[in-house]
């Protein structure tokens, strides 16, 4: 085994770090938390102009999944806005894999400028974990489709140019065989976006589709072939595009704070043996999270489909992140409750922020329970429990 990234990936990482050093300003970070929109078009365009985006599109560029991992891991560790970018790159990869020349010219090329972006229209109010059961209908009408329904958790929809929309086109076959995927321009009539504020700074949306007419050229993949398009998207997503190292910036923030803060027991917080133990455990867990994610990238890079390995990385990383947040909330006590910019807040308010944000990480992108079902049934070979 060789755990060095290799010259090529290391050089790429240094390019990303250099970019971040110049472009990830305090303004960018403040804006993302103030607006709740973890997508910054100027920042993304900067990445594109620096030549860091196109190469990393899965399958399209000349970079491999290890480098895709490096890009998002560096963004995540630095605390940059990357949620929107992850979706954009994911959709770019799906278009590259199953899209038409029209999709490539009309959408993919634009996405790669960093100035355009996409949102994901999978979940519905009554179908969160159970995606095969979604109810949004698309009915053919000549060369067009008429779409009616509602999607939930369409994060970034309020500034997205397209939504990748999972619809039901045949209600008379088994659930997952009657689905079709569309790429719908958000400026089409009949689309409404309503904000869904959350307990953290992140904003998400509900989107409503009322008789939205969309040409057949916006269909992505085969009619009734939406489930396999989902499969392509999920295979890109798992683990590699951020989300498995959220405790790296947390550790950095807490460490920096603890070097300055006084402990109620006297002395610096950083001298507290319990805090030292927990910082070390967090550093250990960050390494494991990184390795489990790298393994998923490695499997993808060597031609495999790291679905289960991605589930394992997500299960491990999110549980450990939540554990670390809980520890640091406790240890920072009253000061850990105070928000960004408040006099006396521990770690400048990051502990409060992580405390608000962390609960969702075991829910979105596949709940802990769904991931455990996957591992139990498909990795351990236990009988189906449902």
């Amino acid at each position: 085994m060789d755990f060095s990234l290799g010259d090529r990936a290391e050089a790429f990482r240094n390019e990303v770090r250099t970019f971040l050093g110049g472009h990830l300003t305090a303004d960018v970070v403040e804006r993302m938390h103030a607006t709740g929109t973890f997508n910054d078009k100027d920042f993304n365009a900067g990445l594109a102009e620096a030549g860091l985006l196109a190469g990393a599109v899965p399958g399209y560029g000349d970079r491999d999944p290890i480098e895709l991992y490096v890009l998002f891991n560096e963004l995540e560790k630095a605390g940059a806005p990357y949620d929107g970018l992850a979706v954009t790159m994911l959709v770019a990869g799906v278009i590259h894999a199953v899209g038409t020349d029209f999709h490539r010219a009309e959408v993919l090329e634009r996405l790669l400028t960093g100035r355009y972006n996409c949102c994901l229209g999978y979940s519905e109010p009554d179908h969160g974990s159970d995606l095969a059961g979604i109810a949004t209908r698309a009915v053919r009408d000549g060369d067009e489709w008429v779409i009616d329904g509602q999607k939930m958790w369409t994060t970034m929809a309020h500034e997205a140019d397209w939504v990748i929309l999972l619809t039901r086109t045949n209600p008379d076959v088994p659930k997952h065989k009657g689905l079709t995927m569309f790429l719908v321009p958000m400026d089409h009539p009949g689309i409404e976006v309503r904000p869904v504020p959350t307990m953290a700074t992140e904003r998400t949306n509900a989107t409503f589709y009322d008789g939205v007419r969309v040409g057949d050229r916006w269909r992505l993949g085969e009619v009734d072939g939406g489930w396999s398009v989902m499969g392509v998207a999920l295979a890109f997503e798992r683990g590699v595009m951020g989300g498995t190292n959220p405790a790296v910036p947390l550790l950095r923030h807490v460490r920096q704070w603890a070097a300055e803060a006084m402990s109620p027991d006297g002395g610096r917080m950083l001298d507290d043996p319990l805090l030292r133990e927990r910082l070390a455990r967090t550093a250990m867990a960050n390494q494991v999270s990184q390795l489990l994610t790298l393994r998923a990238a490695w499997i993808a890079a060597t031609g495999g489909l790291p679905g289960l390995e991605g589930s394992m990385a997500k299960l491990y990383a999110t549980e450990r992140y939540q554990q670390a947040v809980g520890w640091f909330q406790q240890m920072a006590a009253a000061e850990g409750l105070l928000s960004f910019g408040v006099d006396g807040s521990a770690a400048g308010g990051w502990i409060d922020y992580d405390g608000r944000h962390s609960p969702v990480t075991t829910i979105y992108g596949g709940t802990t329970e769904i991931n455990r079902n996957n591992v139990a049934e498909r990795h351990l070979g236990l009988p189906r429990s449902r």
Partner: protein
Amino acid sequence: MDLDLTEDQETIRAVFAAFFDGETGPARAREAEPTGFDAAAWERLLETGAPGMGVPEADGGGGASLADLAVVAIEAGAQIAPLPLVDHGVAARLLSGLPNRNGSEPTVDEGILAGSTIVGLAIRPALNGSARTVPSGAVAHRVVALDGDRLVIDGPLAEVPGAGAGHLANHGCLPLAHRDLSDATVLATGPEAVAAHARAVDEWRTLTAATLVGMAREALVLGVEYVQEREQFGRPVGSFQAVQHLLADLPGLIDGAHLLASKAAWAGDRATDGTTGVLDVDANDVTNFSALAAMALIAAGEAATLATDRSLHVHGGYGFSEEYDIQLYYRRARALTYLLDDPARECRRLAGMILEPAC
């Protein structure tokens, strides 16, 4: 041995459960964000006599016991009432127990008894003449604090800082503020002052534990209701064994914390005549108030943080959205649990009572 409420307490419970259900509750708590104070509900609460109910009758109060106040606090917690009831109640009891030092200012006056003058308690010792993150500091006209070995009271303020720039935005949307004590009046000094403050903080621990028990209880109800209604894969989410088992540990945890908070209140009421109680962990015999108050806050904090975490989790994405109530409980449970100190430091403090001192 009697683990039932008294008849009077049953009445108190019913009355205040109805009050908090009608006048407070999640929707009102949401409206009261970020400051964490519902002035209209406080006005209505004054009519019940709750603000002064814990003050001895001899001082013009309702003469309620700590156990009675715990019954009220549980119901307030269940409805996450944005009211400084525990802080005011404990501070008023502290004031009424003090000798009147200068004659000109009664330690507990009509305004305090009625609740028109809100008193807060700085639960942590002041540092350099400033009381930091005082629980009701953003809405209290006056705050009692321990500054060195001096027990002091600030104010009365004409306008409380919550209306202005003093409120500190925080996780639980509690009415927190720092309070400057430089012009504060001295109420007592020396060991007497320190002991009075310590007793008040133990009462605060006990009643905050009770508040957290109420929050945990209601958070579990919210989770159970949600998973009974919500369907995925064609069946109620609550029929999945993994979901059931996430919730099934909680009743014991919550009931255990409830029993411990009640025992602490019972011990606190017994301790008023100078009884210190038993503290023998080798035989698991503990009737000492300070030890039980510390244990109660630790146990209730565990129960409330875990219950709100699991209940939020079984809500799926909705638990994270502002629209659902569970996130209100989630944040307040953490805020109340960590406000006084890290539970680990609270445990080490408890260790100092039950073990030989560390060398």
